[in-house]
């Protein structure tokens, strides 16, 4: 394990396709042992960022270093295991054969049987790779990424095509990997995954880093909290809409949902109206809403 050098270091990295700047002056630094989510809508530059990180693409400007060396050198040293989003597999061979190949190619390999069972594919080891379901193929890709004792595991949209149970099992395995001191970096658009799994969330939008912090910090940065309640008796809509600190309101039947920049003040004013709110709930925005809030704010700024 490395102690001094950062695991991943991007310094002012840019990559453009024709006129589109897929990654735009990205600077970031990952330390050992972190589980990091790379979050962003489609086209935010997640896959390009991972391609640059893994040395599959060369940046137009800036530098990418893994463990203080080039991505290729880090891969050859067996420090990186990666699972690509569209990571095609060699077909007409069995799952076990493919995993054995991945172990053979890794400088610090695990035993193939270990890798198979950890990825939860021991039962389908004899099946042909081209006969697998989407979720099974995804687990085979995961097995290839964890065929050896790598220090950094990179996963691009790892749970695509997995059902809920498989997904949970997958993240449990991933957490084990992180607990052993590995750095795990994954791109996702499942925000609850980033929320539940990552101790650091990078929000990427149009190739730039919009936010970098814990899931809670990102949510706090979006600012708003959510207030919801049911109204008994008369519902005075204009009065509700006039509540202080309101950033959004949605009334359906007797249920009112409010977004507020200062939930305490809003609720205080609510009682002042003489309304008796039933089933009152005050909660922080989910990461998803926070994410939407941050990206829409950014869109508004750039217009």
């Amino acid at each position, binding site marked *: 394990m490395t102690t001094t050098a950062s695991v991943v270091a991007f310094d002012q990295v840019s990559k453009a396709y024709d006129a589109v700047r897929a990654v735009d002056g990205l600077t970031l630094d990952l330390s050992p042992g972190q589980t990091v989510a790379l979050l962003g809508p489609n086209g935010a530059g997640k896959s390009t960022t991972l391609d640059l990180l893994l*040395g*599959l693409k*060369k940046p137009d400007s800036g530098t990418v270093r893994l463990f203080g060396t080039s991505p290729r050198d880090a891969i050859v040293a*067996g420090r990186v*295991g990666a699972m*690509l989003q569209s990571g*095609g597999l060699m077909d007409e061979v069995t799952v076990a054969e*493919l995993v054995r*190949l991945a172990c053979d190619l890794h400088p610090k390999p695990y035993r193939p049987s270990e890798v198979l069972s950890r990825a939860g594919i021991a039962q389908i080891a004899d099946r042909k790779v081209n006969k697998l379901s989407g979720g099974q193929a995804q687990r085979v890709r995961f097995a290839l990424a964890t065929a050896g004792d790598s220090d950094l595991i990179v996963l691009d949209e790892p749970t695509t095509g997995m059902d809920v149970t498989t997904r949970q099992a997958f993240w449990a395995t991933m957490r084990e990997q992180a607990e052993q001191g590995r750095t795990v970096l994954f791109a996702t658009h499942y925000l609850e995954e980033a929320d539940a799994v990552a101790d650091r969330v990078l929000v990427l939008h149009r190739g730039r880093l919009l936010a970098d912090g814990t899931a809670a910090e990102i949510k706090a940065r979006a600012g708003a909290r959510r207030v919801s309640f049911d109204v008994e008796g008369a519902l005075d809509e204009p009065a509700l809409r006039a509540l202080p600190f309101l950033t959004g309101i949605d009334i359906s039947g007797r249920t009112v949902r409010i977004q507020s920049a200062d939930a305490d003040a809003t609720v205080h004013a609510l009682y002042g109206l003489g309304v008796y709110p039933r089933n009152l709930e005050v909660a922080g925005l989910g990461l998803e809403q926070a994410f939407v809030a941050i990206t829409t704010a950014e869109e508004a700024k750039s217009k």
Partner: protein
Amino acid sequence: MNSLIKLELARALRNRKFLFFSVIYPSVLFLITAGNADSTTKVPGSGLTLPTYMMVSMASFGALTAVLMGNSERIAKEREGGWVRQLRLTTLPGRGYVLAKTASAAVVSLPSIVIVFAVAAAVKDVRLDAWQWLALTGAIWAGSLVFAALGVAIGYLATGDAVRPITMITYFGLSMLGGLWMPTTTFPDWLQDIAKWLPTHAYAALGQAIEQSRAPHVQDLAVLVVSFVLFAGGAAWLYRKDTLKA
């Protein structure tokens, strides 16, 4: 890299259709083309009997099938599917993928050559000296590298959809016009003039020179060498372009 070669080979040996067309089919075709010929009919201008002449053509054809057919299509598909990218995330050196494909094809092409020889000797009484058998095997086997390079180049040139027709046209065009299916002496003159510049023609001519116990024509050797340089150079160039783009 050895493990990838082993796996590529295991996969090739499991593919019955591929094995039939590269290992069995050339022998069948030999029996059909040379079947009615008696052992005294000579192919004009060569001094060789038809079975002797066609034996080299068909062994060359078999080797061509083994190295060209499977690889171009697989490379194009695996490039598109992302397997090539996945391999770039392993310790396998960049060239390893192509070398493993070529090596596994070379292992399949050897039996396709030897089986045509065995059938020709057993059924059509083709007799040659021991050194000729060995030299023939070596020359046809080594010569197949020219077409292995062509297969790799096509695999990096074509998309997954287009690769099959492109390979087929190249394969049938080279086989037929190069005289692997029938002696080019049966062609009209203008077609013979074209045929003698094809690498497949030079390839078979190399084997026939060994059968005639004479040195190969300089032109044939030159055609093969130039073809190899062109195909391998093209493959390397396309490979590098693909790697930068990926």
